[in-house]
């Protein structure tokens, strides 16, 4: 059971681990972060808390303990949701500990699923779209819901089966134009980041984003040669691959004369904003330049100031804080302020709104038990609000919440803030 750790030697290990030892020291061990950690709230074991994980990583670095199987499990169970960074008054940069530690110390998964589906198929929007074609037909024929409802998905290989249960209703949306013009006076020029999974599954959100930006006086450019943000690779120890994707995005966006690069998937936005310090080696300067321009669409609209006329939308909704928006990017008030502008919309507060739903990138495909527990917890909190429309600014959360609702036979609508804003725009035109 006790598999020995790869040899870690201090002080060289500190660079070998890719961790700046001072970051360990910045944790004063006060414990204020524990109760904000989703995995700790479920297991209630300090080993599954931020303070505990920092202690474990440091103890491995100091060679006080070996990286045994149970310790590995506690570290792998971390969602990397960063709720602990929000909670920590001492400003401990937890992400700068767990990410390098995982990349160096925990072996990269080598199974077919990771190699072919996560790393090869997902990042390529075209390929993914083609691969999903049968699923789209199945969806239009009602086959997918049949497979889900009957539990037939359980017959598929485990992770593929889960993937099927995650698919939203698939509809075909026209490809995005390469440029749209502002309605009325031009107030800004922006580029839209479209991503991989999002473009294949949520093109309607991209369309809504275009419309909403246009209506508020933005010219929007959609660069064709852009790539996946690389988050999936980066978070499963494929740093090299991720950097290649980052550099592809640098060449797609860096030379554009735009005020901002707008992103509507929180997970991608968080990754793009990290470009500056994820890889300190050459090209870091250009990556940092791109990172500085990146804005979540909520953040951008809130800063720009909303001007378009909005019509009534008599709806009860509740807002879920995506980890990658609230904790990683610190964007909490902007989407709420935007939604509050919609006449007739009633926003019911959601308990534990910023507790991870268990999606966490590909976590829901790898740490299935915890992902399910967190999804159930999220859904219960949602149901308690009485609202049956959930607003989520992250594609992964949307899929996860929808999946849980479908499995429990509950009708729920999960939308992106820009979709409600677009509906309200349309209501104003009628």
């Amino acid at each position, binding site marked *: *059971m*006790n598999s020995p750790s790869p040899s870690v030697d201090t002080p060289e290990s500190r660079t070998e681990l890719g961790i700046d030892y001072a970051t360990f*020291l*910045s944790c*004063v*061990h*006060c*414990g*204020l*972060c*524990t*109760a*904000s950690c989703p995995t700790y709230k479920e297991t*209630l*074991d*300090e*080993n599954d808390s931020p*303070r*505990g994980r920092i*202690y*474990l990583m440091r*103890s491995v670095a100091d060679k*006080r*303990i*070996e990286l*045994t199987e*149970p*310790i590995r499990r*506690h570290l792998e169970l971390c969602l990397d949701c960063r709720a602990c960074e929000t*909670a*920590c*008054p*001492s*400003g401990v940069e937890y992400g700068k500990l767990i990410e390098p530690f995982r990349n160096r110390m925990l072996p990269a998964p080598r199974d077919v699923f990771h190699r072919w589906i996560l790393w090869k198929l997902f990042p390529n929007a075209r390929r993914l779209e083609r691969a999903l074609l049968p699923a789209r037909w199945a969806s239009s024929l009602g086959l997918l819901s049949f497979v889900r409802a009957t539990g037939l998905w359980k017959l598929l290989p485990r992770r593929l089966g889960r993937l099927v249960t995650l698919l939203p209703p698939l509809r075909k949306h026209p490809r995005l134009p390469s440029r749209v013009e502002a309605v009325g006076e031009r107030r800004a020029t922006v580029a839209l980041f479209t991503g991989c999974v999002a473009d294949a599954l949520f093109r309607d959100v991209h369309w809504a984003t275009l419309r909403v930006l246009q209506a508020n006086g933005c010219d929007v450019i959609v660069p064709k040669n852009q790539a996946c943000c690389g988050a999936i690779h980066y978070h499963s120890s494929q740093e090299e691959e991720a950097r290649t994707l980052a550099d592809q995005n640098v060449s797609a966006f860096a030379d554009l004369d735009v005020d901002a690069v707008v992103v509507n998937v929180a997970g991608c936005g968080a990754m793009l904003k990290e470009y500056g310090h994820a890889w300190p080696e050459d090209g870091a300067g250009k990556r940092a330049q791109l990172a500085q321009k990146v804005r979540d669409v909520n953040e951008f609209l809130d800063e720009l100031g909303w001007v378009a006329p909005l019509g009534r939308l008599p709806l009860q909704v509740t807002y879920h804080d995506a980890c990658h928006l609230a904790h990683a990017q610190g964007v909490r008030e902007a989407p709420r302020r935007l939604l509050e502008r919609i006449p007739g919309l009633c926003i019911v507060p959601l*308990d534990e709104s910023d507790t991870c739903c268990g999606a966490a990138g590909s976590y829901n495909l790898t740490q299935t038990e915890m992902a399910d527990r967190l999804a159930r917890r999220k859904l219960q909190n949602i149901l308690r609000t009485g609202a049956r429309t959930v607003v989520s600014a992250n594609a992964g959360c949307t899929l996860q919440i929808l999946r849980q609702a479908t499995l429990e036979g509950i009708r729920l609508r999960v939308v992106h803030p820009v979709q409600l804003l677009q509906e309200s725009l349309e209501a104003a035109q009628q």
Partner: protein
Amino acid sequence: MASTSDTTVPARILSTLQKIVGNRHVLSSRSERLVYECDGFTLEKNTPDVVVFPRTTEEIAQIVRLCHEHGVPVLPRGAGTSLAGGGLPVGGGVLVVLTRMKDILEIHPDDRYAVVEPGCVNVWLSLALRGTGLHYAPDPSSQGACTIGGNVATNSGGPHTLKYGVTVNHVLAVEVVLADGEVVVLGSPAEDTPGLDLLGAMVGSEGTLGIVTKVWVRLTPDPQGYRTMLAIFDSVDDATTAISRIIGAGIIPAALEMMDQGIIEAVEAAFQFGFPLDAGAVLLIEVDGLEAGLDRQQQDVTQLCRDCRAREVRVAADARERMRLWKCRKEAFGAIGRLSPSYCTQDGVVPRTQLPEILRRIRETGEKYRLRIVNVFHAGDGNIHPILLFDERDSDQVDRVLRASHEILSACLELGGSVTGEHGIGVEKIGFMDQMFSSSDLEAMHALRQAFNPRGLLSPGKLLPTAGACGIEQRHPGRRAAL
């Protein structure tokens, strides 16, 4: 399970513990027990022999009985935010972690009480009470993480305890597992039970008299309104004089907090509230109650501050500004990381009128030991938290911090105060007990513990010094975040 059991607890006990709470809820491998070797106090460490996570009172009773039979030490633990080493497993043994017992069992708005399990996090109760017009008053700065069981065991306070009192004023009854495994209820949800006040003895006993397994807490009506003020002074002396004047005038603010210039600098860097960097000290003063009287109280406080040469008195314009002010105060220590790589927070009490004197002495101590010391504290009840800044990599500084801390706490005693306002004795301050109490006081306390905990197996080495031993040898001040 042999492969994981590198613990020294007898194998027979281990397997019985596993039967009691289930295999999944026992940690016996050394690597998984390691995180339980200390709490918010990191000067001393000792790994427990085994960690168990019970779910019910009955399970705890069985665990305690088993340990009693085998002469194994037992130590309860909540969230592990103690700053005095309350959670340090001094004699090894079985660590009983109460975090799984986290439910809010009942809320009775009409009778104004709630029943919670000990592992319920303080702020979860506040959240559950939203909309009822009631709240649970004790609000330690650690309320987002610490448990109500831990609060009861340490008799926690917080900024608002100046007006509302500490935990003991808000606990109506507790269910406790005694040292031999017997389960008793002390107190009652009905006010004023006759007989000996055993409940009062239990609250603040730091786990030495029993393990709290259920708590009946009093709920307090929310005040109708607040006025939150920020008074800015040129000198610390003026600020502390104002504190005495305000209380002397019969005004009981809901909270009365002081931050000195060093803290202002850190807080301003972190939150950009707009504190003047050249001020000597600021007071954060909150009055609450019926809307009708508040403006008057606000005027009185403002006038008293002006009389003490306040440069300016600002009033929080709305709820959002009030929240921001409180955030600056409650997270002030987090900002201290911006001033220095390491810091050590002390916790002492002096009579309010001695505040100017103790602050002078702290300043002198700082000069003597060439250390920068900054202050942020619950001024209203004379509970000071001097924070000593240093670099833990420099052993000479570490040594000076230790000596300076000791001197400051001794000064508190000399001025008629105490060496802990709210963080408890734990293991950290055990060495001060015989300075604080006469030997007959200590004997009485020993006798009480003896009655509840005759074999000394419950929380050994805590709170009361054992004859001959005078606390632990301190080598290294904790890098602590506490206010």
